[in-house]
């Protein structure tokens, strides 16, 4: 109690370091926000100003009225949500089995999933392109969902198995003694306990798909372009449309922020999972 009122030297240092760290993360984003609300003409003024002289939403108007960006947002959202759902459907049961019924083969399985993350996506892009082309899923939402799922599942598997690892094995056994089948024990006891973990995994999977650039660039062309591709194109097609680009980028970051805030309670619950054990 008394410590709080008397700031110590180390306390000040820690807070200062935290401030520097937060600013180094936040400054680019704040600058992006500031730029997006400048009039288009002011964006590239020399010398550049940090704060806008006049606040204007003309950049936002432009991107929202454009023919490409709203469509790209819908694509991105659809792909990210489907990827999240599909990844969870695969990773949650797989991670559960791999951790609860641990054998040498399941350990190998988890390790193997980790190894696939080490292959750079550039080298997977071309084979993926060929694969999707051969089954006619090139430039389609399902095609991109499959590609993103293949990238997201290993991460989801590792996260979920870490969460399942924290669930005492006796809970499943108690449920089975109380009259559950293995599946009922999973659905009625384990799943409700693990919702925080699932929320965290869902968020990371969503962000993985939402931010993904390379596969989207390779595997989509016209109808299914996602937001990151369209935002990048502001830089080439009509020269340098910095103002529109920053507005699009601000809009692009909103869903992630909204989802994170919406899942905040579950995420904190998921990250402090050990407390459930008691």
């Amino acid at each position, binding site marked *: 109690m008394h410590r709080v009122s008397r700031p110590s030297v180390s306390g000040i240092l820690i807070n200062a370091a935290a401030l520097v760290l937060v600013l180094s993360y936040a400054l680019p984003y704040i600058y992006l926000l500031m730029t997006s609300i400048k009039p288009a003409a002011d964006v590239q003024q020399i010398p550049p100003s940090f704060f806008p002289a006049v606040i204007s939403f003309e950049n936002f108007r432009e991107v929202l009225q454009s023919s490409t960006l709203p469509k790209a947002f819908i694509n991105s959202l659809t792909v990210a949500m489907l990827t999240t759902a599909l990844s969870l459907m695969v990773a949650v049961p797989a991670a559960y089995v791999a951790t609860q019924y641990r054998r040498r083969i399941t350990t190998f399985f988890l390790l193997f999933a980790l190894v696939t993350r080490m292959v750079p996506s550039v080298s997977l892009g071309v084979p993926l392109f060929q694969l999707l082309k051969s089954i006619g899923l090139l430039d389609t939402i399902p095609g991109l969902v499959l590609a993103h799922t293949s990238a997201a599942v290993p991460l989801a598997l590792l996260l979920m198995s870490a969460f399942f690892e924290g669930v005492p094995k*006796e809970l499943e056994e108690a449920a*089975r*003694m109380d009259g559950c089948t293995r599946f*009922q024990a999973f659905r009625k006891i384990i799943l409700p*306990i693990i919702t925080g973990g699932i929320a965290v995994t869902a968020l990371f999977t969503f962000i993985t798909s939402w931010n993904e650039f390379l596969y989207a660039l390779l595997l989509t062309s016209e109808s299914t372009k996602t937001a990151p591709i369209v935002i990048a194109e502001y830089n080439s097609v009509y020269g340098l449309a910095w103002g529109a680009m920053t507005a699009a980028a601000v809009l692009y970051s909103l869903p992630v922020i909204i989802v994170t805030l919406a899942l905040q309670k579950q995420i904190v619950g998921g990250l402090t999972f050990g407390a*459930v054990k008691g």
Partner: protein
Amino acid sequence: MAGIELRNINKIYGNSFHALHDLSFDIKDGEFMVFVGPSGCGKSTALRMIAGLESISSGELKIDDRLVNDVDPKERDIAMVFQSYALYPHKTVRENIAFPLLMAGLPKAEIDSRVNEAARILELTTLLDRKPALLSGGQRQRVAMGRAIVRKPAAFLMDEPLSNLDAKLRVQMRAEIASLQRKLNVTTIYVTHDQVEAMTMGDRVAVMKGGVLQQVDTPQNLYKRPDNVFVAAFIGSPSMNLYEAVLNGRTLTLGSNSFEIPDRVFEGRPSLNGASNRQVIVGIRPEHMNDAAIRPSSAEISAPVTLVEALGSESMVHLNIDASWVDAGDPDAVADIGAEKAAVARFSPKSTIRAGDIARVAVDAEELHFFEPDTRTSIR
């Protein structure tokens, strides 16, 4: 309610570790059976096989005369209390206790009345709407008990249910569980590594060591007639004192001490008759060694006193007997005894003996135990 029958049960784990060897015994309907033994001896393995949580490598397990080797846990009608209690953290106390009834598909009114009844018996009524995280250790233990008794199962299995409680609560719960079991009269198997728990709670006690059943009997019989050196030392506290000795006729030589054995000892042990230079392991319970100055006896030994623990009602006198000390093979006991390997005698509190004295110790020679030095089994 049901009897449980084990016939030559073996457990070999996936890593080819042979955890249980030919376990065979019967548990009668309504009986309170305790599995006891040092940690790692296979008690939990045996219990989990009866529960159906662990597969049976070979042998037969029958519950109520039905072979259940391959029957799913949920079909065995058995309730289990886990060491960690395994309460469902997202459910309230009421939901925890009701869960097995819900799974059994009982009507809601029936569930409510049974849960309330169990809560009343276990004094949980005021806690029914709390989550387990907000309960004390003792309360969680009760909830785990409630979840077991509410079902009226054929049998209860309990794996060290009290080991996470503090000593005082443990003694209290020990009595409560024992009386609850007597009231409900449900076949119960109770696993513990604590021989005091085993002796005070069980109708019968199965002593295990290294995956092998050593002896099954009532607490009294285990104490009075242990089958081998391990059971002799494991049951009773302080442990039975075990030494190598030599028998010549009726004279027992224990290190530098010798004394005469009364005839009655030989009546029950014909193989000791007419012994000459017969090597034996002799066992003496602490209460069968007294201060000869207070209670003289025809069988006396003398030994230096290394320590006196005056407990008020009695004095634990540690003696340095110069015969060869026998290790009974209880891995948990080594820590207690340490390097000293002293004999412990339970003297009357009137004794004035002090550390450093040479004690004259009266041995109650009729109460001696004899074991074969090679097989370590009791000589009868």
